[in-house]
């Protein structure tokens, strides 16, 4: 068996005294979740999603507490899981308010199961008898059958890589170093757009989870401002709808009615 992944994170219990937080070995939040799920030592279809959410959030909070920089993906997932957790624990305040905690949990478990299935498939694939390792071609071929009408050989990949390399070479590379901001409008927009994928047609109060996990308390003001501005822009484009029942009450989001606009943009 060719090991796909050196599972060196196995002993890294979350309740140990000296907690080592290292997400370097993980391929994104789903991977981390899958790893945590495996530690539950049950079949994925019998997993405790709630416990899993707890573990993940604890993991992320630990990472944040020792000031490890986490990719936005991990934080978005933490926000979503915190939301899921609240859905699972607290009776829902509004009747018409979107997917139940159970539905959300099932969706997550499905994604985990699917990822695990693909990982298993990859293992089985890579351990098959492979050409050049277990099975061999004719060492001294006597001819190459010409099957194409064309007398020239080139693949689409050849063509595209030649083009891309050429254009790249000639592109005027002017590097602008952006001022590092904690929450630029673009950041906020990207994160919102990603969360949008998790949203349904129903109102969802996601914003305060987002803020809780995406920012330090001191950055909260800028985060609120940026994400609110970004959400307004997305509302204008029809990708998002927002609702607020009163001042300082939670902001609800849901998918807009219009599909995302094409890349033409209008401006030149």
């Amino acid at each position, binding site marked *: 068996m060719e090991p796909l992944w050196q599972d060196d994170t196995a002993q890294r219990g979350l309740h140990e005294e000296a907690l080592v937080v290292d997400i370097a070995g993980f*391929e*994104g939040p*789903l*991977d981390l*979740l899958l790893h945590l799920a495996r*530690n*539950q*030592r*049950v079949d994925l*279809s*019998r*997993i*405790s*999603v*709630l*416990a899993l959410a*707890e*573990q993940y959030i604890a993991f992320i909070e630990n990472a944040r507490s020792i000031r490890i920089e986490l990719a936005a*993906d991990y934080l978005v*997932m933490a926000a979503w899981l915190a939301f899921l957790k609240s859905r*699972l*624990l*607290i*009776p829902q305040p509004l009747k018409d308010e979107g997917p139940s*905690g*159970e539905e959300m*949990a*099932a*969706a997550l*478990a*499905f*994604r985990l199961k*699917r*990822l695990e*299935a*693909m*990982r298993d*498939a*990859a293992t*089985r*694939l*890579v351990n*098959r*008898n492979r*050409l*050049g*390792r277990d*099975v*061999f*071609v*004719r060492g001294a*071929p006597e001819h*190459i*059958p010409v*099957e194409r009408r064309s007398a020239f050989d080139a*693949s*689409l*990949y050849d063509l595209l890589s030649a083009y891309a390399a050429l254009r790249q070479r000639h592109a005027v590379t002017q590097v602008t170093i952006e001022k590092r901001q904690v929450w630029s409008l673009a950041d906020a927009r990207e994160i919102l757009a990603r969360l949008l994928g998790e949203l349904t047609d129903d109102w969802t109060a996601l914003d305060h989870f987002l803020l809780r996990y995406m920012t330090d308390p001191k950055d909260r003001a800028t985060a609120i401002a940026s994400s609110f501005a970004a959400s307004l822009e997305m509302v204008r484009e029809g990708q998002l709808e927002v609702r607020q029942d009163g001042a300082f009450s939670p902001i609800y989001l849901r998918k807009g009615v219009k*599909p*995302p606009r094409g890349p033409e943009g209008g401006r030149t």
Partner: protein
Amino acid sequence: MSGSQGALPGMIEEEDGEEAALLDQRRATEAERIAEALVFASAQPVTESYIASRLPKGADVAKIMQRLKAFYAPRGVNLLQIADSWAFRTAADLSFVVQTDENEVRKLSRAALEVLAIIAYHQPVTRAEIEDIRGVQTSKGTLDVLMEAGWVRFRGRRRTPGRPVTFGTTRDFLDHFGLEELRDLPGLEELKGAGLLSGRIPANFQIPMPRGDDDLAEDEDPITQLDLEELGLLTPRGEESE
């Protein structure tokens, strides 16, 4: 040999049945020899249509190839079908003798391997779908490596808004992993049956909530902080089932 328009109608009439059968036999053997030579001479798989184009008119290529396949099955060199093509390959059980130090197989990163599997099982698949399954952006170079290896290709575009490009695997992919066709992908049927190859959650896919709190009845209390700690600490019962 359909109808009376055989290559040499005059001759056939002159001969009795036995001789005709002998001639047929000789023709079949000759066709087999040609097909054998064509495929044997090439390191790459040879398409059945190309073989057909080199055989006498009316030869039943499919049948010839099946006969050859059976003939070589017990031998040290096997005739394999790969998609619409045929190739001779050493028998897999002899890998230990044939192996030399030069035989190096491309080592793929874990990410690349995962992406390859997703493309193989879900094709045609868009990049967004791959990322949805993995829950992470595909890093630069991952798809590049797979395309350069000749295992993955641009297939076309999805007929949905935005017309995203779709990816699929190649014949070289089948050849490399010893697959006759995509249907031979290990576990494909089970995965399909379990609904794990579709984007949507299958209807029968249900996750029992821990401690039945999915049906929080009116006479039940919500879970307390204590319960939570317990949940976090305790691994749910049940044995390893993988």
